[in-house]
């Protein structure tokens, strides 16, 4: 085959790959076709990778083959992680994606100098800056999610000024390079400053904001790949990057809306983030608590139950016990469903995956809108490890830091049960008036142990 034929074949195979990628995402729209979507995505990727090896320009394969092998050795364990660890795995894969794109951009720069136009230098600089900051930013996010780094927001005075100055320095280095591409120290300086900016960008962000941050980093990584497509004049990268970028962008917007935070607030990470801890309520308020026996009796006698799970459920590893509760109540004829708030868990859709892993059928999972319209006809709303997403202050108290955030309106149910270790405020440090309502029963204890005790009551005392 001559070179032109090979070039046509490569281009054609990349077009096929892109078409398959789009089909892959389209089939992901419903659980019924989603696995087919993965398969066609795999076929598209395989076609593109295999055809690339026919490129006659390629002469040295040793390190490529070793690197592919390393990729498999790292990739398989990363594909086998537990569902609770999926958020940090996702952050790691964002880091890898950004690393790959940044490495290619850096290598292109050193290959092209000194024959590099201002335009090319602009593209490369932009690509390398965003790639580098996404790399370190994602590593920090992964570290926080894995709890190697503190989950609480790390803030200090003048943070915004410091961070923006660092970003400014990176942009300034890029400008110098555009007008003088061979300035020897400015390119490495630009890379290092961008890496530093990634660290500064994500460090201040707290665990509860992780769903938004992960989606945003996803979007940055996609953008990096698309920019790389511009640098290399490769349309397959432009399309794949645009798809990944728009996906991350959409998810970031959804997360934003679900937390009632403005888009600029998210675009600039945690800058200007509200960290108001509500003033502790002075007066003594009455709390009703119940034992597992009492809770079991009420649950067993009800017709409909909506469970609102939060990340606390996953932390306590209670999802499998929750499934036992689901089984025993369903057997008794109780209609039990799970209401999923969009930001429940540590990344978009995380709670759905955790419940699916515990073998809870997905047609039992309902979204916030459905839950809220059915809440007034619901006998019991059972909250496990969720707090802010059920806080009625978000609707009623204009002074609350979460005022305006859409919530699951559990306070409309006939009875509310909250499984919680103590009355201490939740993640964001905001008091929850739900706990002091007359119809609320607080079930104090560890989520896993408490649910397990309820199940024991229901199976033992149920007379079966």
């Amino acid at each position, binding site marked *: 085959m001559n070179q032109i034929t090979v070039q046509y074949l490569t281009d054609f195979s*990349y077009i096929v790959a892109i078409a398959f990628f*789009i089909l*892959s*995402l389209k089939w*992901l*729209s419903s*659980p019924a076709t*989603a696995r087919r979507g993965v398969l066609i*995505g*795999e076929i598209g*990727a395989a076609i*593109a*990778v295999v055809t*690339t090896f026919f*490129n006659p*320009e*390629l*002469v*040295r394969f040793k*390190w*490529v083959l070793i690197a*592919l092998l*390393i*990729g*498999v050795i*790292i*990739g*398989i*364990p990363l*594909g086998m*992680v537990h*569902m609770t660890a*999926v958020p940090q795995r*996702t952050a790691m*894969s964002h880091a*890898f994606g950004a690393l*790959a*794109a940044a*490495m*290619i951009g850096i*290598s*292109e720069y*050193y*290959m092209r100098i000194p024959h590099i136009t201002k335009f090319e230098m602009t593209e490369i600089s932009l690509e390398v800056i965003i790639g580098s900051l996404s790399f370190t930013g994602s590593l920090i996010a992964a570290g926080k999610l894995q709890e190697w780094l503190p989950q609480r927001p790390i803030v200090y005075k003048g943070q915004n000024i410091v961070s923006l100055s660092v970003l400014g320095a990176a942009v300034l280095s890029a400008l110098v390079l555009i007008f003088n591409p061979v300035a020897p120290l400015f390119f490495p300086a630009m890379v290092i400053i961008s890496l530093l900016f990634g660290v500064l960008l994500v460090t201040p962000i707290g665990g509860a904001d992780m769903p938004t941050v992960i989606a945003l980093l*996803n979007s940055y990584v*996609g953008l990096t*790949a698309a920019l790389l497509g511009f640098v290399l*004049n490769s349309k*397959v*990268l432009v399309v794949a990057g645009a798809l*990944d*970028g*728009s*996906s991350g*962008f959409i998810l970031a917007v*959804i997360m934003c809306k679900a937390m009632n935070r403005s888009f600029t607030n998210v675009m600039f990470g945690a800058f200007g983030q509200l960290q108001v801890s509500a003033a502790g309520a002075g007066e003594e308020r009455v709390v009703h608590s119940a034992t597992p026996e009492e809770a079991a009796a009420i649950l067993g006698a009800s017709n409909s139950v909506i469970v609102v799970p939060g990340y606390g459920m996953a932390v306590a590893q209670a999802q499998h016990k929750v499934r036992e509760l689901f089984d025993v109540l369903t057997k008794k004829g109780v209609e039990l469903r799970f209401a999923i708030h969009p930001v429940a868990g540590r990344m978009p859709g995380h709670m759905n*995956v955790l419940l*699916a892993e515990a*073998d809870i*059928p997905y047609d039992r999972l309902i979204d916030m809108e459905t839950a809220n319209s059915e809440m007034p006809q619901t006998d019991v709303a059972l909250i496990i490890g969720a707090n802010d997403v059920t806080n009625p202050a978000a609707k009623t108290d204009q002074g609350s830091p979460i005022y305006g955030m859409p919530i699951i309106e559990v306070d409309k149910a006939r009875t509310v049960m909250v499984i919680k270790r103590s009355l201490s405020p939740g993640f964001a440090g905001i008091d929850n008036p739900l706990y002091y309502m007359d119809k609320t029963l607080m079930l104090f204890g560890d989520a896993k142990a408490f649910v397990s005790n309820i199940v024991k009551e229901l199976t033992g005392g149920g007379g079966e």
Partner: protein
Amino acid sequence: MPEGFISNLYVFVLAGFLGFEVIRRVSPLLHTPLMALTNALDAIVVVAAIIIAARPGSELSEILGAIAVAAAFSNMVGGFLITDRMLRMFKLSGRKKQ
């Protein structure tokens, strides 16, 4: 402006809109698998990395290219693997296994 920039820009804008329309339809139920799948698809940068590492050039580009190949390919392998694992977990009621 290098040749191809404008046509790449066309492709970028159209792909962005297409992505927006397709992904908007993905059920919130599957947002985590969606992110895993788009990571795997984005790992197609591995084809560029292979070319950078394997074409004649400096040792630096061979090393940087190889790092990029390893990083991107691990995303491709791991991304498809975990997406499929997650999707296998989603079951309807009344169809019990095990």
